[in-house]
């Protein structure tokens, strides 16, 4: 036996990058605006999708892909609204990746807007481009007002930051202004203070969605 050295120079993230590019090309060719909705567990991602479909479903063709560790709880909530939806069980993987989406997105070719709900996690999804147009990052005051400062990378790369459940801030002792300041120190992205159950910030969200879809030029499809 003897020892040899071999050069490799293998980019271990190359496959995800390649598939994300292919996903992105598919979305662009078919005029679909795609949101990657990321955020903490319980931050309100599924409710945001439900409310968006209720508000805009008659004006836009909206589809949803929902990732979750096991079971289809989030998918079932959204599917009840009658939209085209798909569920992905990620098992022990704590994030969606471009590969998981790659073969499913062809079912959404005629959508104006595709809402992808990522697994509830502020760390792992960051490094995995899905081919989306916008990264929406959602947290809620109930996670503690230092949650943004503790997870800088996901907020740094966000296109929109939502701080949800603001009506509960007093009850849990969370300083929303601090959360906004922490977000502002990481990103120039728009920040929406929201409470979906009280209707706070929802109009701002709908305006963001409308602007995003119009930028992609899909508003006439349906």
């Amino acid at each position, binding site marked *: 036996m003897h020892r*040899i*050295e071999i050069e*490799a120079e293998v980019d*271990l*993230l190359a496959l995800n990058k390649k598939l994300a590019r292919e996903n992105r090309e598919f979305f662009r060719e078919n005029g679909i605006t795609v949101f990657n909705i990321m955020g903490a567990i319980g931050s309100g991602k599924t409710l945001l999708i439900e409310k968006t479909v209720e508000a805009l479903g008659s004006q836009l063709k909206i589809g949803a892909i929902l990732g979750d560790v096991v079971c289809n709880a989030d998918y079932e909530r959204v599917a009840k609204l009658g939209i085209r939806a798909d569920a992905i069980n990620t098992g022990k993987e704590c994030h969606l990746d471009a590969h998981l989406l790659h073969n499913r997105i062809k079912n959404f070719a005629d959508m104006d807007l595709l809402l992808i709900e990522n697994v509830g996690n502020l760390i792992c999804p960051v490094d995995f481009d899905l081919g989306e147009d916008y990264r929406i990052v959602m947290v809620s005051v109930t996670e503690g007002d230092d949650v943004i400062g503790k997870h*800088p990378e996901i907020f740094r790369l966000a296109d929109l930051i939502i701080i949800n459940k603001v009506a509960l801030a007093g009850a849990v002792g969370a300083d929303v202004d601090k959360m906004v300041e922490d977000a502002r120190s990481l990103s120039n992205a728009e920040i929406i203070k929201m409470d979906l159950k009280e209707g706070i910030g929802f109009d701002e969200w709908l305006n963001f969605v409308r602007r995003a879809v119009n930028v992609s030029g899909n508003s006439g499809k349906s």
Partner: protein
Amino acid sequence: MGYAEALLQHALKLAEEKGAKEIKKIRIAIGELLLINPEQLKFCFSAIASNTIAENAELEIEFLKAEGKCITCGKVFDSIDSTTYICNCGGLIEFKGGKDFILKSLSLEV
């Protein structure tokens, strides 16, 4: 763990192509913005590499720096720490790079 699994899979494939009996060392370059803990990566790798030709492989890790530049004043930052996302002038620092995970080379016993 996902990174460790991808690393093992690629290392074994390359080693098997050369008919290797053992992988002695794996050199990797990791972007600092991936925020991967090297000790944890080594631990996860050793856990999944057992009973493979990589089970005694040493991981040699080089960290690749991200390049940061203030979008307001243009000041350049050649590394990050956990708090360096805003410049002294108050502007945001935009980062390029620092996100790669590269299997550089292998030392094999053949």
